[in-house]
């Protein structure tokens, strides 16, 4: 399969073009999609290519997600755009009480092929209402699949898989990643949900990460190499379903792990990983599993404050040195 270097945004537009051509039931619904191709330009070209299938809405998150759900129950396969992940709060009932539970409550009678697209993350001076990483709320809601890609190729493969999946999926992509460039396979490319990727092999420590944490991690890995530490990097890609098998295989080789994510520390997905590791892999551990995450405050506006609360490359290096006693 040939590859070229394109951005996450280009990968998204490519997948949607391919999938919307293949399947007429797919449509996109949300605010401010038509004129600017989505507020991050991620749907560029699609409104022209698929007239009537990229639908601008009033500012009505409750009904945007609710309408997506209703359409999914009646034969369509919507992609709902949340604008900013922060606004999931305005549609929480439709996501957590309705989309996540309908199939189960009704005894499996119906499929819910719904993708909720939610650009998340901090680092842009956008302050407390436009910067959150909320994936752990949804991991804690049975009935939802949670996807958090990092590199453009992952975005392509996972978005394709999400659009073809018959369950409700919340798809978080960090806002800073839209412009990230990377090699992306041409043509059809599917990454099955629930499949982590070992993005770098190493024998001394396993770093478990996803989303924006991946980029910090690869920076840290370079520094660690200078210290003679070979880190294995696992990009989880989907949190639910979780590929624990890949995690276990790696830990049985390295005996040490550090979790890196941008969501805040307490109750974050790292806590779940540490719990699973300690209950299932206790005998393999040579050190406590450490977490690198955002400090437990809302994201502040001012750059020095924001920088301080977010996880850094140095935080990762420090945590790895601690678990490797180096």
């Amino acid at each position: 399969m040939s590859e070229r270097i394109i951005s996450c945004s280009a990968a998204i537009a490519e997948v949607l073009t391919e999938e919307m051509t293949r399947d007429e039931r797919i449509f996109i619904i949300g605010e401010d999609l038509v004129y600017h191709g989505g507020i991050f330009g991620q749907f560029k070209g699609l409104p022209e290519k698929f007239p009537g299938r990229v639908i601008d809405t009033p500012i009505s998150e409750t009904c945007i997600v609710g309408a997506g759900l209703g359409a999914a129950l009646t034969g369509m396969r919507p992609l709902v755009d949340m604008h900013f992940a922060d606004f999931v709060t305005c549609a929480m009932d439709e996501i957590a009480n309705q989309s996540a539970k309908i199939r189960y409550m009704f005894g499996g009678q119906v499929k819910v092929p719904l993708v909720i697209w939610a650009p998340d993350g901090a680092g842009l001076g956008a302050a407390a209402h436009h910067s959150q990483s909320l994936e752990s709320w949804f991991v804690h809601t049975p009935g939802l699949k949670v996807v958090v890609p990092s590199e453009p190729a992952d975005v392509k493969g996972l978005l394709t898989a999400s659009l073809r999946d018959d369950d409700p999926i919340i798809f978080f992509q960090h806002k800073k990643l839209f412009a990230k460039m990377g090699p992306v396979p041409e043509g059809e490319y599917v990454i099955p949900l629930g499949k982590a990727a070992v993005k770098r092999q190493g024998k001394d420590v396993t770093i478990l990460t996803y989303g924006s944490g991946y980029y910090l991690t690869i920076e840290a890995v370079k520094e660690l190499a200078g210290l003679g530490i070979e880190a294995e990097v696992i990009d989880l890609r989907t949190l639910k379903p979780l590929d624990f098998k890949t995690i276990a295989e790696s830990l049985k080789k390295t005996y040490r792990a550090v979790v890196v994510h941008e969501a805040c520390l307490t109750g974050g997905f790292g806590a779940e990983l540490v719990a699973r590791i300690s209950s299932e892999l206790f005998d393999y551990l040579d050190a406590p599993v450490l977490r690198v995450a955002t400090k437990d405050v809302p994201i502040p506006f001012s750059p020095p404050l924001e920088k301080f609360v977010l996880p850094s490359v140095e935080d990762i290096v420090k945590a790895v040195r601690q678990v490797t006693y180096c």
Partner: protein
Amino acid sequence: MSDESNTLLSLYRTMVTVRKFETLAGELFAAGKIPGFIHLSIGQEGSSVGVCSILRPDDYLITTHRGHGHVIAKGGDLKRMVAELMGRKTGYCKGKGGSMHIADFSLGILGANGVVAGGFPIITGAGLSIKLRKTEQVAVCFFGDGASNRGPFHEALNMAAIWKLPILFVCENNCYASTTKTSYACSIIDIANRAKGYGIPGVSVDGNDVLAVRHAAAEAVGRARQGEGPTLLENKTYRRRGHFEGDPQRYRDQAEVVEWEQKNDPISRFTTILMKKKILTKDLEREIAAKIEADLKEAVEFAEQSEWPKPEEALEDLFVNP
């Protein structure tokens, strides 16, 4: 000078202050001195100033992402505002909030909001609190046309109506919600008509006529203070800048913007009235402009000389009792 002339001049002064503040904020943003993103209210000064001109210092106000004008018109301190926009420790929120999250609780400003329609439920609570405490305060909620399409608007109007809460809901219909035309996203032309569904007065006025706004707000606030309940006031205006600074504005023709600017600028319109009444003269106009510019210059100097917050301060202010 008569009381009336003084009032009119004070309206004028505040409108020019808002305009110059917003223009300056745009410049500081373009110069990379304001992080994040900002939304300006240039062309909407008739609404912010007209409404706030009839409020008492102890009245409450909640605003939006496009809230600088409301804060200034309610008496906000320019220095602390500029400092907040620039992320400094001396800013209104010690750099934690930024443009979209300015508040001054000492002036009854319960905050700007980054979530569209985030203010409706809160203003309902402020109105309820006024009623429970039996004061004669009033609570004002500014919001956009776009916000009136969210559920909280409807819940708040109904709740305020059944309890006759002393609330003034002020819709600033500026023809757009981000890239989306109001005429596309709203099922009616006059958003004030939505009041009918909740059995409360709904009034649409020319939002670029500061005196019309002031008059309508005075009536509504008067009713609220008498215990006669809420009003929905719609100020029809126009957003002349992009939704945010840097917005490529592919959704509109610039000719439309120029037309509003040339034919329907709230400050020019009011200037003409004041000149005709001989309340304002060319000299006074220059004098007022110079004073405001000096104040703003001082505010920028204050902000630029202010310290950045120390990183560890990010961990403060979360709880009263940590």
